[in-house]
């Protein structure tokens, strides 16, 4: 694939599949047709040059390929689809309606009748154009397992008739929550070590913000992801060990992402319809103005506890309490939480115990956190902290 076709593929695959799904009413057929069109592009573009509207070219070519394919088949359903295709306008669809097609497809992929991990896989496959192999690798499952998951999800959409539709207003808040959760899940999977997934979740986040500019939570999620992503380079040192936020060099943060994220936070908060993603983004925006104003972080977590309480939010709030009211107060809050299987709880506890001079307990907490974390960068950090407390524990 030449550079040009690859770039168009990343940008336009989801758009083309969304339009073709709408025409054909069948996801597999749409994917095959779009892949055919890109195969044709790889052959012809080096000679003819990239057409003025690459997306339009891909969609028109895919539609023609789909018609060819359907003419070779003779089932009643195929004839129906062919009739629909022939009635479709010849010119490349306009920008407006095309946007709606992608939005429809996102809501289909993230339909609550599909299992969450199927929602994630479908979104990456259909909107992001990731291959089954790439998705399988990112989620540490075998390729046949991931292929089976995609096949079952697509079959359910077809057999149960999950509609291609943006939900009506009454259902939109709930359904949008589901879509944002899928995008954030993709981001968090990527945070652990697959930068491609982070890039893909940012792309999806931008798409949602563009398609639903009046939904401040969509903007909030994009801002949150941008601000967290801005610290990617600063988050690990040269030896691959985790560098906690408080020890990061702000000069290594990506200023462009910080600026964009902070701008979006201000823009969505002005709408005065705060939600969990906007508040979390606001926390990250405060952190991005080093040194952190911990009083403001605490007020934001108080707010978050009011709108979306959870033990994880309470743990993050406790970290802010440690900075504003001291580690003893924070430790009491942390010890009241029921999060024993969560490595961050033990890492936070270890740090608080260390600051209180309770080294033996701190060592045990570092060990427990290191045992539970799946990140090698974090484990390296935790083990160094543990060794600094007790030389005889080190190797």
């Amino acid at each position, binding site marked *: 694939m030449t550079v040009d076709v690859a770039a168009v593929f990343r940008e336009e695959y989801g758009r083309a599949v969304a339009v073709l799904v709408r025409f054909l009413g069948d996801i597999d057929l749409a994917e095959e047709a779009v892949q055919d069109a890109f195969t044709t592009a790889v052959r012809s573009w080096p000679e003819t040059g990239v057409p003025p509207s690459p997306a339009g070219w891909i969609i028109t070519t895919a539609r023609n390929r789909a018609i060819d394919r359907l003419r070779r088949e003779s089932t009643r359903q195929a004839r129906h689809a062919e009739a629909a295709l022939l009635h479709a306008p010849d010119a490349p669809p306009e920008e407006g309606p095309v946007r709606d097609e992608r939005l429809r497809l996102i809501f289909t992929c993230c339909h609550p009748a599909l299992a969450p991990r199927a929602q994630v896989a479908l979104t990456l496959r259909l909107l992001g154009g990731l291959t089954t192999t790439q998705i399988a690798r990112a989620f540490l499952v075998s390729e046949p397992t991931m292929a089976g998951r995609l096949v079952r999800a697509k079959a359910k959409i077809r057999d149960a008739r999950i509609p291609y*539709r943006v939900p009506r207003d009454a259902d939109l808040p709930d359904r949008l929550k589901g879509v944002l959760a899928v995008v954030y899940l993709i981001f968090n999977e990527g945070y652990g070590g697959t930068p491609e997934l982070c890039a893909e979740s940012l792309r999806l986040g931008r798409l949602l913000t563009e398609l639903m500019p009046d939904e401040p939570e969509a903007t909030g999620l994009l801002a949150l992801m941008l601000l967290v992503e801005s610290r990617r380079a600063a988050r690990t040192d040269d030896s691959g060990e985790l560098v906690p936020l408080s020890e990061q060099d702000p000069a290594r943060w990506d200023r462009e992402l910080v600026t964009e994220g902070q701008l979006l936070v201000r823009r969505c908060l002005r709408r005065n319809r705060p939600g969990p993603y906007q508040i979390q983004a606001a926390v990250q925006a405060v952190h991005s103005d080093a040194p952190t104003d911990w009083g403001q972080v605490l007020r934001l977590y108080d707010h978050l506890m009011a709108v979306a309480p959870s033990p994880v939010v309470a743990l993050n709030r406790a970290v802010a309490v440690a900075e504003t009211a001291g580690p003893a107060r924070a430790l009491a809050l942390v010890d009241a939480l029921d999060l024993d299987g969560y490595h961050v709880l033990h890492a936070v506890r270890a740090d608080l115990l260390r600051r209180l001079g309770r080294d033996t307990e701190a060592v045990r907490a570092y060990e427990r956190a290191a045992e539970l974390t799946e990140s090698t960068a974090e484990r390296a950090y935790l083990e160094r902290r543990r060794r600094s407390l007790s030389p005889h524990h080190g190797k």
Partner: protein
Amino acid sequence: MQYYLLNVMQPGWDELPAPEVLAEIGARLDAFHQELREAGAWVFAGGLHSPDSSTVLRPRDGDVLITDGPYAEGKEQLGGLCIVKAPDLDAALEWGRKAALATTLPIEVRPFQHESED
């Protein structure tokens, strides 16, 4: 249009609700069925006797064996069913949601393999 089966999943047949609670559920179900009819979504609905009343027929060597009791002993058994006609899953899930609230029981929604004629 597509046919969907709404299965009412009935846990614990031994501990049925009190008669006055059952009467309330019955009244809500009547209203639900009426709503289905008025919307043109009605195909069929009915509650079942307990699994104790069931008989299973199994083919064996060209003959058929009759046995007493449900096909599978499970914590949840089919308590009743309803067949609706709906344009897509969202519409069917909306009927399922109403059925769940009316019966106070979990509802499984499954599409039939063939489309309805209209």
